[in-house]
């Protein structure tokens, strides 16, 4: 049986009914990963095979009643394999964040979101590739390898959770976890033809999620089927005392509510998004197709304006780098991470021009102490170009004399964007629009032009700035065989409504989950 063609919930049912063992399912996807990943490069690391299979066997023993109290909770996904973005800590196993800085880092603890998956009997297969510290939209900023889009190997899988999206598209795992700071779950999901949810800020604990921008970061579930996304969310969501921004709210049963009727649902179409000059016409058609299906399901369409939407990218690319510059100050090579070799502690050794001659650096005559020299050399050698650019941008935007014009002004604009959404959600229940302006682009196309890369995030950053749940949903294929996608957004904590809308769109034929045909 081709297990990659089953939904994760269907596979979970088979495992629960003992039609197939967790060990068999795990071995199947491990083998598929080993066979296909050389073409795709989705994983940074596959976990140790014997350890993974031993874990699967424990789940089997639990299910056959031989071991008790192993699982904290049973889920429709118990026994199903999952791939984890390498930004989430897994105790004792490398968690690299796609960076040379953390290449050897083995966390002493497991992230809450991952721990809850393991407690529910999901088996972690491996850690997936990403833009370094989640900063990027193409996974090309990874220091640890290239990830290709399984639908077109010369194209990007999107980013920063490109590895997780590619794993799913290639059928190497039925489930994957990403993280989303400005669209990093939704845009790769769109590029790879899978579903990806960024939940309400604070719904899933950020404990053990390596920080990029703390007021924007969220862990997000990814899968081929909306039902699988809902079941994953159910496991990971919920209050965690170890994260002070974790919401302490009662959770609905997301899976049970997938069939709530959409009759009378008011769907907002954002003019500023749908009529944006950069938007590919095939994506416009995909959004219109979703509109038709929603109307058939009893929904009403309403045109909506978000007047400040033109400033979202600008606000995001001030706020996120500011928070990043503060968060990434922790990489100083004292307690963990890459430390520059002793002989390169001195800047005069590390800095050479193209011809190999020693050249002056920004440190000038300001003679740093040996400790500072070690930190500066380690940060300069351990962090990649895009990460450095964002640290510099944030440091600048927070510096004396500029903080009001940049950081504080961005926070005021953020409030105006939030108010736009507030008024929109007085008129409608969900918003429908594009995820990205175009389908997946060719590797290398934008990597040297940060601004071009940033502009691709214009439809996704708002949900992070405002803290809303937003979901990326496949919506067919382009003429050249690339996945197209739509985005749904809802008010805070309305994941149920979002997932129900998406689930019924999927069932009404918006898309049929597909595995990319790799040789």
């Amino acid at each position, binding site marked *: 049986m081709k297990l990659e063609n089953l939904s994760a919930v269907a596979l979970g049912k088979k495992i629960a009914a003992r039609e197939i063992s967790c060990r068999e399912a795990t071995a199947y996807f491990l083998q598929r990963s080993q066979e296909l990943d050389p073409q795709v490069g989705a994983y940074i690391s596959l976990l140790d095979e014997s350890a993974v299979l031993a874990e699967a066997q424990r789940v089997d023993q639990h299910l056959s009643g031989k071991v008790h109290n192993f699982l904290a909770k049973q889920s429709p996904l118990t026994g199903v394999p999952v791939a984890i973005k390498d930004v989430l800590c897994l105790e004792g196993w490398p968690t690299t964040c796609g960076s040379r800085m953390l290449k050897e880092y083995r966390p*002493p603890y497991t992230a809450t979101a991952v721990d809850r998956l393991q407690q529910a009997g999901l088996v972690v297969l491996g850690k997936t590739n990403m833009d370094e510290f989640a900063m990027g939209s193409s996974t090309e900023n990874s220091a640890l390898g290239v990830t290709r889009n399984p639908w077109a190997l010369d194209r990007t899988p999107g980013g920063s959770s490109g590895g997780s999206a590619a794993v799913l598209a290639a059928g190497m795992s039925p489930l994957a976890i990403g993280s989303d700071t400005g669209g990093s779950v939704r845009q790769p999901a769109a590029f790879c033809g899978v579903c990806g949810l960024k939940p309400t*800020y604070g719904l899933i604990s950020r404990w053990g999620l390596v920080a990029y921008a703390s007021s924007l970061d969220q862990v997000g579930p990814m899968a081929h089927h909306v039902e699988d996304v809902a079941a994953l969310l159910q496991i990971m969501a919920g209050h965690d005392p170890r994260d002070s921004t974790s919401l302490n709210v009662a959770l609905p049963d997301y899976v049970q509510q997938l069939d709530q009727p959409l009759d009378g649902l008011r769907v907002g179409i954002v003019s500023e998004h749908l009529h944006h000059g950069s938007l590919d016409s095939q994506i416009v058609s995909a959004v219109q197709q979703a509109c038709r299906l929603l109307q058939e399901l009893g929904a009403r369409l309403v045109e909506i304006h978000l007047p400040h939407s033109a400033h979202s990218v600008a606000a995001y690319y001030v706020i996120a780098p500011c928070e990043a510059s503060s968060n990434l100050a922790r990489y100083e090579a004292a307690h963990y991470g*890459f430390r520059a070799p002793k002989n390169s502690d001195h800047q005069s050794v590390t800095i050479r021009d193209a011809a190999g001659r020693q050249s002056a*650096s*920004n440190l000038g005559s300001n003679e740093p*102490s040996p400790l500072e020299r070690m930190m500066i050399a380690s940060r300069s050698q351990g962090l990649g170009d895009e990460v450095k650019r964002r640290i510099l941008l944030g440091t600048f935007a927070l510096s004396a004399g500029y903080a009001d014009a940049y950081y504080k002004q961005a926070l*005021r*604009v953020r409030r105006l964007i939030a108010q736009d959404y507030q008024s929109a959600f007085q008129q409608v229940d969900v918003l429908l629009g594009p995820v990205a302006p175009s389908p997946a682009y060719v590797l290398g196309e934008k990597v040297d032009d940060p601004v071009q890369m940033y502009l691709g995030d214009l439809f996704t950053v708002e949900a992070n700035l405002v803290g809303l749940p937003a979901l990326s949903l496949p919506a067919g294929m382009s003429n050249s065989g690339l996945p197209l996608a739509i985005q749904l957004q809802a008010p805070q904590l309305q994941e149920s409504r979002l997932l129900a809308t998406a689930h019924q769109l999927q069932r009404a034929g918006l898309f049929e989950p597909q595995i990319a045909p790799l040789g």
Partner: protein
Amino acid sequence: MQLSRDDVRKVAALAKLELSDSQLDDVAEKLRNVLRLVDQLSQVDTTGVEEMAHPVDVHSVTRGDQIQAGLPREAALRNAPQTDGEFFLVPPVLG
């Protein structure tokens, strides 16, 4: 905002990052392009608008002052580039 090479030099020193002269040009140019993109924020009238640092109402979360188990020393030191088994070792702080 016209960001000069000298500005980038200063910011890099603040951020504990080292840039060679040749890197400085490329970084300064790319940062100038990004600043051109974000400078549009100054055109937005934000008179009387309160800053929004967070998407949900956050307030300080405190816990009872009870002793809880922390990370064992060995685990805390395991990832360190250099230790003496008890402490993290770094080069001299004053030198």
